[in-house]
């Protein structure tokens, strides 16, 4: 049985190895390059470059030597072996010194002893040297073990690995491998960390150990370009388009027309087709929640009961109530198997779909006007428990965490990933809290108007990177989530905008509900407008969740 074949072409990066000098620290080859004359002028005096490094770019921040090495690395990573070698030759700047090239080749060939001794030729810090040696010898040990050369493996462990005197616990782990070898009798299976790696993986790890000047990190250029794109995306004020739309050819920039800012449709009674009238509540409905599969609805009548409806038939499937008290809020569990409600005795309740009470939490758990939500894992129940506090109640551990504000909380909404909570306050501020792990206030959003009504806000857009809110000045406000910067104010409604809902699938569609008795659908400015206002003649409901 031979060594582990890792599929690397044996000739990789060998081309210049024979010509490479063993002086690593200089990093610049001293030979006259056989290059085009224009390049030769600049590269003919490499020794002088060492003291005062040549720089490129408008700000002189990029060291030419580093840049060329990265390009060569990128070429090799792309599989352009010949171009990479050609660049090294033409520029006279080797990607890696001869010693490193030899070392890499030895590792790929599985010549562990040569690799280890090669390390001595590279001037390295003592601790780095030991770690690198450990890495190489460990791989040697595993490969011997897998080849059935248990005694040789043992010798390596005893005479080569142990004397390094580092990572004692790891050495113990290695020796346990010998005891349990060969081949998983009595069901003992080795962990992945106790198996030989691919040789290319050993190289990757080696690269992480060695200083980057000696061994250039793999794919470093790609990483830098990605960093630039990320930065462009992060500073793009209206960013709401897919990463596929980003190009290296030009700096990325989304225009204002990438967020929904134009009314596409005004839906009042008659504009949309009435499917069912869900009759049963005696009072106005304050909350409506879609089931996770979109087949059912949960509704909460203000100071009344909670009802579950079948969307296709319009039938009321179940009524949830608690004798002597009225319901104030309702929510689905993420699996759609149970429902939650808050009650006027300040308790929270959980039922199965058939109305059997599964659990209830007594004490100060909710207030009269409260939202209710359950995190994606189904573990935490979120409710406004006091005028100025939101309770995060762990269903299983019973641990209670609090988000405490200085001002009264009017409503909240949970982000799609369940890690963030958007909290609306009575003093015309919206606060974004991280609730995953440590509870932390991240960002504040201001500008909208609120004095009398429950005005809701929501997350939305691509990766939920925007915040939208209704307002009592009849406008819709949109902020950038990360910075809190107000990016757009949408006029159009003629009454208080109570509720906003950003399409969870289409980042370019937003719906708003208003006291002007209409629902508006907003889309991109460039889109075709289908603006039809139909005379309003009936009931309205815009105070619940959309």
């Amino acid at each position, binding site marked *: 049985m031979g060594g582990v074949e890792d599929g690397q072409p044996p000739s990789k990066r060998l081309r210049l190895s024979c010509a490479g000098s063993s002086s690593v620290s200089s990093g610049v080859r001293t030979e006259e390059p056989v290059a085009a004359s224009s390049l030769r002028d600049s590269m003919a005096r490499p020794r002088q470059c060492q003291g005062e490094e040549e720089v490129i770019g408008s700000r002189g921040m990029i060291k030419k030597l580093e840049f060329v090495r990265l390009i060569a690395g990128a070429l090799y990573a792309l599989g352009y072996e010949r171009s990479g070698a050609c660049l090294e030759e033409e520029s006279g700047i080797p990607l890696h010194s001869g010693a490193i090239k030899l070392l890499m080749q030895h590792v790929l060939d599985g010549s562990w002893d040569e690799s280890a001794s090669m390390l001595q030729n590279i001037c390295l810090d003592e601790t780095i040297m030991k770690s690198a040696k450990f890495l190489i010898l460990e791989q040697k040990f595993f490969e011997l073990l897998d080849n059935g050369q248990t005694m040789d493996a043992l010798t390596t462990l005893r005479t080569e690995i142990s004397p390094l005197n580092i990572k004692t616990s790891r050495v113990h782990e290695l020796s346990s491998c010998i005891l349990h070898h060969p081949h998983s009798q009595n069901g003992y299976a080795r962990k992945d960390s106790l198996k030989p790696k691919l040789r290319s993986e050993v190289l990757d790890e080696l690269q992480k150990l060695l200083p980057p000047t000696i061994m250039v990190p793999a794919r470093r250029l790609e990483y830098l370009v990605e960093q630039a794109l990320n930065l462009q995306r992060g500073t793009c004020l209206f960013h709401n388009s897919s990463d596929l739309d980003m190009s290296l050819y030009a700096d990325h920039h989304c225009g204002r027309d990438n967020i929904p800012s134009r009314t596409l449709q005004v839906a009042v009674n008659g504009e949309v087709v009435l499917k069912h009238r869900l009759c049963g509540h005696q009072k*106005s409905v*304050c909350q409506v929640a879609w089931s996770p599969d979109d087949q059912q609805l949960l509704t909460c009548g*203000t*100071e009344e009961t909670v009802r579950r409806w079948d969307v296709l038939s319009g039938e009321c499937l179940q009524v949830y109530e608690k004798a*002597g*008290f*009225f319901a*104030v809020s309702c929510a689905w569990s993420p699996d759609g198997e149970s429902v939650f409600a808050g009650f*006027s*005795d*300040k308790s929270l309740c959980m039922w199965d779909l058939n109305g059997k009470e599964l659990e209830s939490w007594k004490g100060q758990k909710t*207030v*009269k*006007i409260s939202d209710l939500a359950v995190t994606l894992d189904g573990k935490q129940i979120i409710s406004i428990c006091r*005028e100025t506090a939101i309770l995060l109640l762990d269903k299983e551990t019973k641990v209670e965490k609090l988000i405490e504000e200085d001002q*009264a909380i*009017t409503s909240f909404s949970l982000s799609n990933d369940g890690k963030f909570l958007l909290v609306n306050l*009575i003093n015309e501020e919206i606060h974004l809290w991280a609730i995953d792990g440590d509870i932390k206030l991240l960002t504040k959003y201001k500008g909208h108007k609120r*004095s*009398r*009504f*429950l*005005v809701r806000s929501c997350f939305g857009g691509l990766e939920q990177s925007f915040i939208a809110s209704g307002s009592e000045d009849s406008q819709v406000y949109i902020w950038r989530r990360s910075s809190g910067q107000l990016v757009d104010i949408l006029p159009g409604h003629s009454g*208080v905008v*109570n509720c906003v809902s950003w399409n969870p699938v289409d980042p370019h569609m937003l719906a708003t509900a208003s*006291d002007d008795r209409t629902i508006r659908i907003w889309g991109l400015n460039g889109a075709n407008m289908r603006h039809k206002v139909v005379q309003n003649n009936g009931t309205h409901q*815009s*105070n*619940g969740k959309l």
Partner: protein
Amino acid sequence: MGRLFLIELEGRIYSCRLCQSHLGIADDIISKAFHSRNSRAYLFDRVVNVTVGEQEDRMMMTGLHTVVDIFCVGCGLPVGWKYEFAYEEDQKYKEGKFILERNQLAGPNVNAFPFVEAFGLVGIPEPVDDA
């Protein structure tokens, strides 16, 4: 109409005489020795469920003050004012405090379980406190 956001108070509650929205509790009264044009008035440390009007300077018996009128969130009834700024040094204690006019108030009513009140189970009326 959208859903009004009304805070529920607990304790001995003064509410709007028209719509019964809670406005303040007896424990938050700083002084009952105030007067408005039409009635007696109480100075409250904290008042809820009100909206504010425009700021204006008003000459009172105790000197010049910057005030804003306050209105019940539920029905818009003017129920008093809030002191934003007092020009006289010895009146500074009123800044940030609220006046509720007695003739616009109902109560105080005890409300131990505020939620239940809407069901008509509790809500024991107490004699009007005129002290």
